[in-house]
Protein backbone atom coordinates (compact mmCIF):
# COMPACT_ATOMS: atom_id res chain seq x y z
CA UNK A 1 0.00 0.00 0.00
CA UNK A 2 2.71 2.44 1.06
CA UNK A 3 4.86 1.34 -1.83
CA UNK A 4 1.90 1.90 -4.22
CA UNK A 5 1.44 5.38 -2.79
CA UNK A 6 5.12 6.26 -3.04
CA UNK A 7 5.19 4.98 -6.63
CA UNK A 8 2.11 7.04 -7.45
CA UNK A 9 3.61 10.15 -5.83
CA UNK A 10 6.85 9.69 -7.76
CA UNK A 11 4.95 9.27 -11.00
CA UNK A 12 2.87 12.40 -10.46
CA UNK A 13 5.94 14.44 -9.40
CA UNK A 14 7.79 13.40 -12.57
CA UNK A 15 4.70 14.18 -14.71
CA UNK A 16 4.43 17.64 -13.19
CA UNK A 17 8.13 18.23 -13.79
CA UNK A 18 8.06 17.14 -17.43
CA UNK A 19 7.94 20.28 -19.73
CA UNK A 20 5.92 18.33 -22.29
CA UNK A 21 2.98 18.22 -19.88
CA UNK A 22 2.86 22.00 -19.29
CA UNK A 23 0.26 22.47 -21.98
CA UNK A 24 -1.90 19.60 -20.75
CA UNK A 25 -5.31 20.92 -19.57
CA UNK A 26 -4.99 18.61 -16.56
CA UNK A 27 -1.66 20.16 -15.54
CA UNK A 28 -3.15 23.13 -13.62
CA UNK A 29 -5.76 21.25 -11.52
CA UNK A 30 -3.32 18.37 -10.93
CA UNK A 31 -0.57 20.64 -9.66
CA UNK A 32 -3.11 22.34 -7.32
CA UNK A 33 -4.32 18.98 -6.09
CA UNK A 34 -0.68 17.97 -5.63
CA UNK A 35 -0.02 20.95 -3.41
CA UNK A 36 -3.24 20.45 -1.45
CA UNK A 37 -2.20 16.84 -0.88
CA UNK A 38 1.17 17.94 0.51
CA UNK A 39 -0.48 20.50 2.74
CA UNK A 40 -2.77 17.81 4.13
CA UNK A 41 0.19 15.51 4.82
CA UNK A 42 2.05 18.23 6.71
CA UNK A 43 -1.03 18.93 8.82
CA UNK A 44 -1.54 15.31 9.70
CA UNK A 45 2.10 15.19 10.69
CA UNK A 46 1.78 18.19 12.98
CA UNK A 47 -1.40 16.93 14.57
CA UNK A 48 0.17 13.59 15.36
CA UNK A 49 3.23 15.26 16.86
CA UNK A 50 1.12 17.51 19.10
CA UNK A 51 -1.15 14.65 20.06
CA UNK A 52 1.84 12.47 20.94
CA UNK A 53 3.29 15.24 23.12
CA UNK A 54 0.01 15.65 24.98
CA UNK A 55 -0.27 11.98 25.47
CA UNK A 56 3.20 11.73 26.95
CA UNK A 57 2.51 14.65 29.33
CA UNK A 58 -0.73 13.02 30.45
CA UNK A 59 1.09 9.73 30.91
CA UNK A 60 3.78 11.37 33.03
CA UNK A 61 1.18 13.13 35.11
CA UNK A 62 -0.72 9.98 35.70
CA UNK A 63 2.45 8.25 36.82
CA UNK A 64 3.39 11.03 39.23
CA UNK A 65 -0.17 11.11 40.60
CA UNK A 66 -0.11 7.36 41.12
CA UNK A 67 3.25 7.70 42.82
CA UNK A 68 1.99 10.48 45.07
CA UNK A 69 -1.18 8.60 45.88
CA UNK A 70 0.82 5.55 46.83
CA UNK A 71 3.09 7.66 49.02
CA UNK A 72 0.11 9.28 50.72
CA UNK A 73 -1.48 5.91 51.33
CA UNK A 74 1.73 4.57 52.82
CA UNK A 75 1.95 7.63 55.05
CA UNK A 76 -1.69 7.30 56.10
CA UNK A 77 -1.18 3.67 57.02
CA UNK A 78 1.87 4.59 59.05
CA UNK A 79 0.10 7.44 60.85
CA UNK A 80 -2.76 5.11 61.72
CA UNK A 81 -0.39 2.41 62.94
CA UNK A 82 1.61 4.79 65.14
CA UNK A 83 -1.55 6.47 66.39
CA UNK A 84 -3.00 3.11 67.39
CA UNK A 85 0.12 2.35 69.39
CA UNK A 86 -0.02 5.70 71.17
CA UNK A 87 -3.65 5.06 72.05
CA UNK A 88 -2.83 1.60 73.34
CA UNK A 89 -0.06 3.15 75.45
CA UNK A 90 -2.47 5.72 76.89
CA UNK A 91 -5.02 3.01 77.56
CA UNK A 92 -2.48 0.93 79.48
CA UNK A 93 -1.23 3.97 81.38
CA UNK A 94 -4.81 4.78 82.36
CA UNK A 95 -5.26 1.26 83.64
CA UNK A 96 -2.04 1.49 85.65
CA UNK A 97 -3.10 4.87 87.03
CA UNK A 98 -6.51 3.55 87.98
CA UNK A 99 -4.85 0.60 89.73
CA UNK A 100 -2.39 2.93 91.53
CA UNK A 101 -5.12 5.32 92.61
CA UNK A 102 -7.33 2.61 94.06
CA UNK A 103 -4.78 0.32 95.68
CA UNK A 104 -2.44 0.63 98.60
CA UNK A 105 1.16 1.04 97.47
CA UNK A 106 2.62 -1.07 100.30
CA UNK A 107 0.23 -4.02 100.56
CA UNK A 108 -1.37 -3.98 97.11
CA UNK A 109 -4.89 -4.38 98.50
CA UNK A 110 -7.69 -1.83 98.10
CA UNK A 111 -6.97 1.63 99.50
CA UNK A 112 -9.27 4.00 101.29
CA UNK A 113 -10.47 5.55 98.02
CA UNK A 114 -11.66 2.25 96.56
CA UNK A 115 -13.23 1.28 99.90
CA UNK A 116 -15.07 4.61 99.89
CA UNK A 117 -16.39 4.01 96.34
CA UNK A 118 -17.57 0.50 97.18
CA UNK A 119 -19.11 1.57 100.49
CA UNK A 120 -21.10 4.22 98.67
CA UNK A 121 -22.28 1.69 96.08
CA UNK A 122 -23.33 -0.73 98.81
CA UNK A 123 -25.17 2.01 100.72
CA UNK A 124 -27.04 2.97 97.51
CA UNK A 125 -27.88 -0.66 96.82
CA UNK A 126 -29.15 -1.03 100.35
CA UNK A 127 -31.38 2.01 99.91
CA UNK A 128 -32.89 0.54 96.71
CA UNK A 129 -33.18 -3.14 97.61
CA UNK A 130 -33.02 -3.13 101.40
CA UNK A 131 -30.00 -5.46 101.45
CA UNK A 132 -28.00 -4.69 104.53
CA UNK A 133 -24.22 -4.98 104.66
CA UNK A 134 -21.74 -5.21 107.51
CA UNK A 135 -18.46 -3.41 108.08
CA UNK A 136 -15.59 -4.81 110.11
CA UNK A 137 -12.77 -2.60 111.34
CA UNK A 138 -9.60 -4.50 112.22
CA UNK A 139 -6.55 -3.20 114.00
CA UNK A 140 -3.24 -4.97 114.65
CA UNK A 141 -2.68 -5.37 118.38
CA UNK A 142 0.38 -3.64 119.81
CA UNK A 143 1.72 -2.89 116.34
CA UNK A 144 3.75 0.03 117.65
CA UNK A 145 5.79 -2.46 119.65
CA UNK A 146 6.84 -4.31 116.45
CA UNK A 147 7.90 -1.06 114.83
CA UNK A 148 9.78 0.08 117.93
CA UNK A 149 11.56 -3.25 118.54
CA UNK A 150 12.32 -4.32 114.96
CA UNK A 151 12.13 -1.17 112.86
CA UNK A 152 9.68 0.00 110.24
CA UNK A 153 10.92 -2.40 107.57
CA UNK A 154 9.82 -5.34 109.68
CA UNK A 155 6.58 -3.54 110.52
CA UNK A 156 5.94 -3.04 106.81
CA UNK A 157 6.68 -6.69 106.06
CA UNK A 158 4.22 -7.66 108.76
CA UNK A 159 1.53 -5.49 107.19
CA UNK A 160 2.16 -6.98 103.74
CA UNK A 161 1.88 -10.56 105.09
CA UNK A 162 -1.17 -9.67 107.12
CA UNK A 163 -2.92 -8.01 104.17
CA UNK A 164 -2.29 -11.13 102.13
CA UNK A 165 -3.89 -13.33 104.83
CA UNK A 166 -6.90 -11.03 105.13
CA UNK A 167 -7.46 -10.94 101.41
CA UNK A 168 -7.16 -14.72 101.09
CA UNK A 169 -9.52 -15.45 103.95
CA UNK A 170 -12.42 -13.13 103.19
CA UNK A 171 -15.19 -14.41 100.93
CA UNK A 172 -15.21 -13.65 97.21
CA UNK A 173 -17.88 -10.96 97.53
CA UNK A 174 -16.13 -9.19 100.42
CA UNK A 175 -13.72 -6.33 99.92
CA UNK A 176 -10.73 -5.97 102.18
CA UNK A 177 -8.70 -2.76 102.18
CA UNK A 178 -6.17 -0.80 104.15
CA UNK A 179 -7.97 1.98 105.96
CA UNK A 180 -4.78 3.58 107.23
CA UNK A 181 -1.68 2.71 109.28
CA UNK A 182 -2.26 -0.76 110.79
CA UNK A 183 -6.03 -0.50 110.42
CA UNK A 184 -7.99 -2.54 107.88
CA UNK A 185 -11.60 -2.41 106.79
CA UNK A 186 -13.55 -5.37 105.48
CA UNK A 187 -16.82 -4.71 103.66
CA UNK A 188 -19.22 -7.64 103.75
CA UNK A 189 -22.12 -7.08 101.30
CA UNK A 190 -25.54 -8.56 102.08
CA UNK A 191 -24.30 -9.95 105.38
CA UNK A 192 -25.85 -9.65 108.82
CA UNK A 193 -23.93 -9.37 112.09
CA UNK A 194 -23.88 -13.11 112.88
CA UNK A 195 -22.60 -14.12 109.45
CA UNK A 196 -20.09 -11.27 109.48
CA UNK A 197 -18.80 -12.39 112.88
CA UNK A 198 -18.21 -15.93 111.56
CA UNK A 199 -16.16 -14.59 108.67
CA UNK A 200 -14.14 -12.24 110.87
CA UNK A 201 -13.45 -14.89 113.53
CA UNK A 202 -12.14 -17.21 110.83
CA UNK A 203 -9.96 -14.39 109.49
CA UNK A 204 -8.62 -13.64 113.00
CA UNK A 205 -7.86 -17.34 113.47
CA UNK A 206 -5.73 -17.39 110.29
CA UNK A 207 -3.94 -14.23 111.38
CA UNK A 208 -3.01 -15.91 114.67
CA UNK A 209 -1.34 -18.69 112.63
CA UNK A 210 0.74 -16.18 110.66
CA UNK A 211 4.43 -16.01 111.50
CA UNK A 212 7.03 -13.64 110.11
CA UNK A 213 10.65 -14.60 110.54
CA UNK A 214 13.09 -11.90 111.57
CA UNK A 215 16.60 -13.37 111.81
CA UNK A 216 16.07 -16.22 114.27
CA UNK A 217 12.94 -14.83 115.84
CA UNK A 218 9.40 -15.66 114.74
CA UNK A 219 7.00 -12.74 115.06
CA UNK A 220 3.28 -13.31 115.49
CA UNK A 221 0.41 -10.89 115.71
CA UNK A 222 -3.20 -10.76 116.71
CA UNK A 223 -5.92 -8.41 115.54
CA UNK A 224 -8.89 -6.86 117.31
CA UNK A 225 -12.10 -6.27 115.38
CA UNK A 226 -15.32 -4.33 115.65
CA UNK A 227 -18.27 -5.16 113.42
CA UNK A 228 -21.35 -3.10 112.65
CA UNK A 229 -24.29 -3.92 110.42
CA UNK A 230 -25.78 -1.05 108.51
CA UNK A 231 -29.17 0.09 109.75
CA UNK A 232 -31.63 1.07 106.99
CA UNK A 233 -31.36 4.80 106.31
CA UNK A 234 -27.99 5.10 108.01
CA UNK A 235 -25.06 6.66 106.12
CA UNK A 236 -22.07 4.38 105.66
CA UNK A 237 -19.81 6.75 107.56
CA UNK A 238 -22.06 6.33 110.59
CA UNK A 239 -21.85 2.55 110.21
CA UNK A 240 -18.05 2.89 110.14
CA UNK A 241 -18.19 5.00 113.32
CA UNK A 242 -20.16 2.28 115.08
CA UNK A 243 -17.69 -0.39 113.90
CA UNK A 244 -14.88 1.85 115.19
CA UNK A 245 -16.52 2.09 118.59
CA UNK A 246 -16.92 -1.68 118.73
CA UNK A 247 -13.22 -1.99 117.84
CA UNK A 248 -12.34 0.38 120.66
CA UNK A 249 -14.43 -1.77 122.98
CA UNK A 250 -12.51 -4.89 121.84
CA UNK A 251 -9.23 -3.12 122.64
CA UNK A 252 -10.48 -2.07 126.04
CA UNK A 253 -11.63 -5.58 126.84
CA UNK A 254 -8.09 -6.89 126.38
CA UNK A 255 -7.43 -7.05 122.57
CA UNK A 256 -7.38 -10.15 120.31
CA UNK A 257 -11.13 -10.27 120.28
CA UNK A 258 -14.12 -9.27 118.20
CA UNK A 259 -16.94 -7.00 119.39
CA UNK A 260 -20.29 -6.33 117.76
CA UNK A 261 -21.63 -2.79 117.56
CA UNK A 262 -24.92 -2.00 119.22
CA UNK A 263 -27.49 -0.40 116.94
CA UNK A 264 -27.76 2.80 118.88
CA UNK A 265 -24.51 3.74 120.51
CA UNK A 266 -22.55 6.37 118.58
Amino acid at each position, binding site marked *: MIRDRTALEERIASLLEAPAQAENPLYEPLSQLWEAHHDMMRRIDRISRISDAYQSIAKQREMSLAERLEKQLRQLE*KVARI*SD*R*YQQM*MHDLNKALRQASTHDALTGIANRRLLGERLKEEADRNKRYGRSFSIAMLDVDLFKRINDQHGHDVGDRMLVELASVLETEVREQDLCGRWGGEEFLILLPETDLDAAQQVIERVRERVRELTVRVDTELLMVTVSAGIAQQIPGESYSRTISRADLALLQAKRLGRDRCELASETAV
Partner: protein
Amino acid sequence: MNDFSIAGTQSSPAIRGDWAQGLLAMQGDSYPENSYELFHQVFTWIEAYLADAGRPLHLELRLLYLNTSSIKAMMDIFDLLEAAHLAGKAVSVSWLYDQRNERVVELAEEFKEDCTFPFDVVSHD
Protein backbone atom coordinates in the same frame (compact mmCIF):
# COMPACT_ATOMS: atom_id res chain seq x y z
CA MET B 1 16.25 33.91 60.01
CA ASN B 2 16.78 33.64 63.73
CA ASP B 3 16.14 31.66 66.88
CA PHE B 4 12.66 30.89 67.99
CA SER B 5 11.10 29.31 71.01
CA ILE B 6 7.61 28.30 72.01
CA ALA B 7 6.86 27.65 75.66
CA GLY B 8 5.42 24.23 76.40
CA THR B 9 1.98 23.70 77.90
CA GLN B 10 0.26 20.62 79.23
CA SER B 11 -0.93 19.81 75.71
CA SER B 12 1.86 21.18 73.53
CA PRO B 13 5.61 20.57 73.57
CA ALA B 14 8.25 23.15 74.39
CA ILE B 15 10.02 23.95 71.11
CA ARG B 16 13.32 25.75 70.65
CA GLY B 17 15.22 26.48 67.47
CA ASP B 18 18.85 27.58 67.84
CA TRP B 19 20.11 28.82 64.47
CA ALA B 20 23.75 29.30 65.53
CA GLN B 21 24.01 25.79 66.97
CA GLY B 22 21.91 24.17 64.27
CA LEU B 23 19.69 22.63 66.90
CA LEU B 24 15.95 22.12 67.08
CA ALA B 25 14.67 20.74 70.39
CA MET B 26 11.16 19.55 71.19
CA GLN B 27 10.04 18.26 74.56
CA GLY B 28 6.77 17.14 76.14
CA ASP B 29 3.33 15.88 75.18
CA SER B 30 1.72 16.99 71.96
CA TYR B 31 -2.03 17.13 71.56
CA PRO B 32 -2.53 20.82 70.80
CA GLU B 33 -5.74 22.33 69.48
CA ASN B 34 -3.86 24.20 66.75
CA SER B 35 -1.41 21.53 65.69
CA TYR B 36 -1.25 22.79 62.11
CA GLU B 37 -0.29 26.29 63.24
CA LEU B 38 2.18 25.03 65.80
CA PHE B 39 4.02 22.66 63.48
CA HIS B 40 3.86 25.06 60.57
CA GLN B 41 6.27 27.33 62.46
CA VAL B 42 8.62 24.43 63.10
CA PHE B 43 8.41 23.30 59.50
CA THR B 44 9.10 26.80 58.17
CA TRP B 45 12.09 27.22 60.46
CA ILE B 46 13.61 23.90 59.38
CA GLU B 47 13.02 24.68 55.71
CA ALA B 48 14.70 28.07 56.07
CA TYR B 49 17.61 26.59 58.02
CA LEU B 50 18.19 23.85 55.47
CA ALA B 51 18.04 26.37 52.63
CA ASP B 52 20.22 29.11 54.11
CA ALA B 53 22.40 27.95 56.99
CA GLY B 54 24.78 25.68 55.13
CA ARG B 55 25.55 23.83 58.35
CA PRO B 56 24.42 20.55 59.87
CA LEU B 57 21.01 20.36 61.54
CA HIS B 58 20.31 18.27 64.61
CA LEU B 59 16.88 17.51 66.11
CA GLU B 60 16.69 16.61 69.77
CA LEU B 61 13.32 15.12 70.67
CA ARG B 62 11.94 14.25 74.08
CA LEU B 63 8.38 13.65 73.02
CA LEU B 64 5.97 11.51 75.00
CA TYR B 65 2.38 11.40 73.81
CA LEU B 66 1.57 12.52 70.26
CA ASN B 67 -1.95 12.80 68.91
CA THR B 68 -2.68 11.85 65.31
CA SER B 69 -2.13 15.28 63.75
CA SER B 70 1.16 15.63 65.63
CA ILE B 71 2.25 12.23 64.32
CA LYS B 72 1.48 13.40 60.78
CA ALA B 73 3.41 16.62 61.37
CA MET B 74 6.45 14.74 62.68
CA MET B 75 6.38 12.45 59.64
CA ASP B 76 6.33 15.52 57.38
CA ILE B 77 9.33 16.91 59.25
CA PHE B 78 11.21 13.62 58.86
CA ASP B 79 10.34 13.59 55.15
CA LEU B 80 11.83 17.07 54.89
CA LEU B 81 15.01 15.87 56.61
CA GLU B 82 15.15 12.79 54.39
CA ALA B 83 14.97 14.96 51.27
CA ALA B 84 17.75 17.19 52.64
CA HIS B 85 19.84 14.13 53.47
CA LEU B 86 19.41 12.76 49.94
CA ALA B 87 20.49 16.18 48.66
CA GLY B 88 23.75 15.76 50.57
CA LYS B 89 23.00 17.89 53.62
CA ALA B 90 23.99 16.80 57.12
CA VAL B 91 20.91 16.14 59.24
CA SER B 92 20.44 13.95 62.31
CA VAL B 93 17.87 13.12 64.96
CA SER B 94 18.19 11.99 68.58
CA TRP B 95 15.00 10.73 70.14
CA LEU B 96 15.52 10.62 73.90
CA TYR B 97 13.26 8.54 76.12
CA ASP B 98 12.81 7.96 79.81
CA GLN B 99 13.85 4.45 80.83
CA ARG B 100 10.67 4.16 82.85
CA ASN B 101 8.67 4.43 79.67
CA GLU B 102 10.23 1.89 77.32
CA ARG B 103 7.25 1.91 75.00
CA VAL B 104 8.35 5.24 73.57
CA VAL B 105 11.24 3.28 72.01
CA GLU B 106 8.91 1.22 69.83
CA LEU B 107 7.15 4.35 68.68
CA ALA B 108 10.37 6.20 67.88
CA GLU B 109 11.52 3.13 65.93
CA GLU B 110 8.32 3.28 63.87
CA PHE B 111 9.13 6.86 62.92
CA LYS B 112 12.72 5.93 62.14
CA GLU B 113 11.74 3.13 59.76
CA ASP B 114 11.80 5.11 56.50
CA CYS B 115 14.69 7.43 57.41
CA THR B 116 18.16 6.84 56.01
CA PHE B 117 19.84 9.73 57.87
CA PRO B 118 21.35 9.21 61.36
CA PHE B 119 18.44 8.65 63.76
CA ASP B 120 19.28 7.53 67.31
CA VAL B 121 16.83 6.38 69.93
CA VAL B 122 18.61 6.77 73.27
CA SER B 123 17.62 6.69 76.93
CA HIS B 124 18.18 9.67 79.20
CA ASP B 125 18.11 9.92 82.99
